[in-house]
């Protein structure tokens, strides 16, 4: 197993008296695509800037490619950054923009020319753009020039600071696909900062969810989605059901008890228990798409409820239900049909499997 290319240990960051990062520990493998996700103010951008060298940190260690980066300026790190506002040099042509890092590194002209053209091809940019200025290109084209400039010197780490957040939906979707393709081709390690968890799930090998300067969870997209260790993480993407539940332990393992839910054997499968549980008061999480309404076969657990509202969302129909014994409403997503099969006020039976639940700390 090779050493991680980014190795952060117990890193703290203060801005004057305000602590922006608490005890951050993170390691990124060579060639990995990792996303830093969280709401505004969670510290993800600070962390990115620290990796790039634009901000210093107060305690802990940061190693890139195995070397300690304390006191190393951005120009000497193996990182390249794509800025949120792109930061393309307005007074230089597209060619000069992309060639800039190579020119600084004093590469011979022939090599610069070759590599710039390679980048053009990689980014699907037209050759006649070379002599144009950034202002003359469209938003998507400018994005690709910015990416080209960052990748032209084949850095081992690419840092992306919410590069897609200002774009409209269509452009965003196409560039998201571009990023994923780039990552597969180029093989550079990507660190991508975004506030959009859906984007992170689409692109990243692993996701690091942050809030208020802390890392809440690091894991593969599936883990984050189906096994969130923290209620915030659970609620950060899509909709989910979080029901208070009480745990008791016996020779079978962990038993859960939630009013309104009837199970044959309410034993939590071991992988569905959060590792950070510290009390018997817990939350039971189940994703809306994993609950069936009036299914033909019964599953491990059942609830009885009444539909209070439904929303047609295109590919799915979402129902809100009131379940006897439960204070919260239940949300269920079912695949869409031409006609809404269930109406408001109807009583239904809800089923779900034990393997689809997750118990996390409150």
């Amino acid at each position, binding site marked *: 197993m090779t050493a991680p290319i980014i190795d952060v240990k117990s890193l703290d960051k203060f801005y004057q008296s305000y602590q922006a990062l608490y005890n951050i520990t993170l390691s990124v493998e060579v060639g990995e695509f990792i996303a830093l996700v969280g709401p505004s*103010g969670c*510290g993800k951008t600070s962390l990115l800037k620290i990796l790039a060298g634009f901000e210093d940190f107060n305690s802990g260690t940061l190693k890139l490619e195995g070397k300690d980066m304390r*006191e*190393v300026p951005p120009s*000497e790190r193996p990182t390249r950054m794509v800025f949120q506002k792109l930061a393309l040099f307005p007074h230089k042509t597209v060619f000069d923009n992309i060639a800039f890092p190579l020119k600084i590194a004093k590469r011979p002209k022939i090599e610069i020319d070759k590599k710039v053209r390679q980048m053009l091809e990689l980014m699907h940019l037209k050759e006649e753009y070379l002599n144009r200025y950034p202002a003359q290109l469209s938003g998507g084209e400018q994005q690709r020039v910015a990416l080209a400039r960052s990748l032209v010197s084949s850095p081992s780490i690419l840092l992306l600071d919410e590069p897609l957040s200002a774009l409209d939906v269509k452009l965003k979707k196409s560039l998201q696909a571009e990023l994923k393709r780039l990552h597969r081709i180029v093989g550079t390690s990507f660190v991508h900062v975004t506030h959009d968890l859906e984007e992170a799930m689409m692109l990243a090998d692993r996701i690091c969810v942050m809030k208020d300067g802390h890392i809440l969870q690091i894991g593969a997209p599936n883990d984050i989605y189906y096994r969130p260790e923290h209620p915030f993480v659970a609620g950060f993407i899509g909709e989910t059901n979080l029901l208070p539940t009480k745990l008791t332990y016996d020779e079978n393992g962990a038993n859960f008890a939630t009013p309104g839910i009837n199970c044959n054997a309410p034993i939590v499968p071991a992988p569905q228990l959060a590792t950070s549980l510290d009390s018997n008061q817990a939350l039971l999480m189940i994703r809306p798409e994993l609950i069936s309404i009036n299914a033909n076969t019964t599953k491990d657990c059942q609830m009885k409820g009444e539909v209070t509202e439904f929303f047609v969302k295109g590919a799915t129909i979402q129902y809100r239900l009131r379940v006897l014994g439960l204070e919260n409403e239940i949300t269920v997503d079912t695949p869409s049909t031409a006609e809404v099969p269930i109406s408001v006020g109807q009583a239904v039976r809800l089923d779900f499997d034990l393997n689809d639940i997750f118990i996390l700390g409150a």
Partner: protein
Amino acid sequence: MSYYRFETRLANFILYGSVIITLVFFYIPIATLVAFSFTESRFLTFPIEGFSLKWYGALFAEKNFLPALWGSLKLAFIVTILSTILGCAAAVAWMRFKFRFQRTFQALTFAPLLFPQLMLGVVMLLWFSILGNFFGFSMSLWSAVLGHVVYITPFALIIIAVQIHGFDDTLEDAARDSGCSNWEVLREITIPILWPGIFSAGIFAFLLSWGNFYLTYSLSGTSRTLPTFVFSGIANGSSPIFPALATLTFIPAMLLVGLADFFRRRAADRLKSGPTDI
């Protein structure tokens, strides 16, 4: 890595050093004057002999001084009011409207700034002399007022125009939407927000007029103003009276500039938006 360190140190040295040198440079004559105003002796030699305030007294005793001071003050007040009003109006015309020949208007109102002051004074002097011969009047405070207004209004204009540039006119829309009449919108929204610019422009205009030499010298004729007082005085031989005078003129200027800065900062704080993202 050590090159980076070296470079940072060198850059800081150059940058901070140049600021310090520039500030020192700017204040050498001012500090010299202030220091000399307290000398005991009649002669302006260094090192300063003794410490005395007698030259301030001698200054006020000079029979031409108070009339000249009063003349300059009158001049400055009138010019300030006129320049600020005209500059404000012109700034609005510059920034909020579009009209035919706007470029010409802008060029014309901006042009006096670019005239070397002496040239402006000469040109206006010629004109006033001819007018004077024709209509039978001579140069007085009013010719100086006009000269100052022509020269200083562009400055006031620019300061206010900058303030207008960042003006968010949706605030006016909101006010009108809440039922305000045009006059009320002006009074309650527009002017309060533009006030820092207008106030700074006024202070700037006052100081420019107060400290102006070339134009006043050319255009005030026989009326008494500080520049003529100083120029004729120095021509007759230097004496510590003039450093004392200088110090006296610096004090109100310094106070006014400090005041303007205080107001500007207070207004800027009020307009600051919410927390910034990390």
